[in-house]
């Protein structure tokens, strides 16, 4: 928990001192439904306050130093187990999402090309569901989470070797409009 707080502190300091405006990172295909709160945050320009209790501001989503900027989690072959490092990332997202119940995510599950396509479609979903479970256990509502699996159909790396395969065994956390 200590390390998490440090991240939050750094994020807050950077945002407060820098005062720069981050352009939202648009993910292909995501629906951008802005709530009024998000609209206010953007309109205010340089004012990035921190609410009580050290809660994460919306802008933390765009901060490259925040754990929230890590949106891809990786897996071992045939496995849907989460690594200890990824658990921390998920915890950061869980904290953020539970404080912003109006924000939702899509968890996209993937597998590498080896093995059969349909089994890989199921494996991608299992990976996404494992992440979902960790999020809901930490206070995120199921209504905020949507799961899609692409199995092996949407690789990010196209080579036929382990360097590519490890990049494809992943779950992507997609925030609408961010």
């Amino acid at each position, binding site marked *: 928990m200590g390390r998490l707080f440090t991240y939050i502190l750094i994020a807050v300091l950077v945002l407060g001192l820098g005062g720069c405006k981050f352009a939202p990172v648009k993910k292909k295909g995501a629906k951008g439904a802005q709530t009024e709160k998000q609209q206010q945050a953007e309109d205010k320009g340089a004012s990035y306050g921190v609410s009580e209790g050290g809660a994460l501001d919306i802008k933390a989503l765009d901060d490259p130093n925040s754990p929230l900027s890590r949106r891809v989690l990786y897996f071992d072959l*045939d496995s849907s187990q989460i690594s200890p490092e990824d658990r921390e990332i998920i915890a950061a997202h869980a904290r953020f999402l539970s404080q912003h119940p109006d924000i939702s995510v899509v968890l996209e599950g993937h597998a590498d090309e080896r*093995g*059969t*396509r*349909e*089994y890989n*479609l199921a*494996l991608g979903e299992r990976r996404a569901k494992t992440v979902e479970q960790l999020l809901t256990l930490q206070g995120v509502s199921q209504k905020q989470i949507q799961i899609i699996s692409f199995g092996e159909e949407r690789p990010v790396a196209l080579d036929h070797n382990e360097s590519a395969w490890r990049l494809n065994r992943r779950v992507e956390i997609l925030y609408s409009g961010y």
Partner: protein
Amino acid sequence: MLKKLSSLIILSLMMFPAPSYAVLTIEITQGVEGAAPIAIVPFGWRGAGGSQPPEVMHRIVAADLQRSGFFKPLPDEDMIARPVEAAQVNFADWRALNVDHVVVGRMQELPDGTYQVQFQLLDVYKGTQLAGYSIRSRKPDLRRTAHQISDIVYQTITGKPGAFDTHIAYITVTHNRKQERIYRLAVADADGHNEQIVYESKKPLMSPSWSPDGKRLVYVSFTRGRPEIYIQNIFSREIRRVADFKGINSAPVFSPDGTQLALTLSKDGNPEIYLMDLRSKRLSRVTRSYAIDTEPAWMPDGKAIVFTSDRGGSPQLYRVKVNRKGAAGRVERLTFDGNYNARASVSPDGRYLAMVHREQGKFRIAVQDLKTGHFRILTESRLDESPSFAPNGSMIIYATEDNYRGVLAAVSVDGRAQQRLSLQSGDVREPAWSTFKSRK
């Protein structure tokens, strides 16, 4: 905003037959020792004013027979004579060339623009005719006529039906000028010719499977952003969405009587096998486990389903009896060789299972004899998948990798004959071989 309907009929206006701009080319990659020598003599031709025949019939027949792995056609240049009918055949010539059988034929263009094709199959050692037919054919059907000749030759000599007059369906992936991926569902003759595009999308397509009457394909499409199941009539191009439940909708296969689908749905928590009655759309659940259960394949009597499950810790093949209400017996494990066996294809006689088998990190096609338990690995590559039996059970078509591209390959069930079918550019994958009734 479209209301969510469980079935939606869409007339696909953009899907009229595209010209065959991507032909699959076939290469024999492994010849067969001990295959029966046969001579398919170039057909005689009588056409309008010294023209060339529209199709080189004897070559289509020779290629068919060679692909089956049972025959070794004599090269044209080794033929001493070129008879075009039985009366012209001097059997001594052919005995000298050590061929067991000879096929002679001729083709004639008729005044109405159709063609008369005649052929005779002769036994060289007995000096007798085994079969002889005369077939009238329109120009676009000439390749089909040649495949029918191959079927007759094959069946007369081996006693088993040929599978040359059949179709394959498959998925191709290419890139357009913007480097976007284009997915196409295509149907072609079993020798790779006459490719027709049935559906095209920028989103992934998966798992095509034939209806038993050969008129429809069921497949998975990500057209709306998630995996859903569609049935499409390949002649009318009419599309119907049949499964769009929450979660995964995938691995659809028609039952042998065509009235049901077996499919994988994860709507109840994790991927399970269900049956869907195509008329009522009613679902019956087959599996109940916390494991992944997917890739159903019907036994030919329609009374049991083989499927992939990792309930034992890693993917293996299991079988369960089914009736219209769902599971009708215990789940029985079928595979025990190695720790990854998946994606079963059942031979038409119900005796053999083709599957994807992993050994030392390499994915290969293997065949298991359900009667004896005998297990044999048929291929030697490392990324093989999607095996599909020919309707006569003699060959298995599957997807593999060659030079970093996805290609299709076919292997005879005894492993002896191998061919590769590849596109000029892009990947081919997920082949499905039709039944015998695949023609109108």
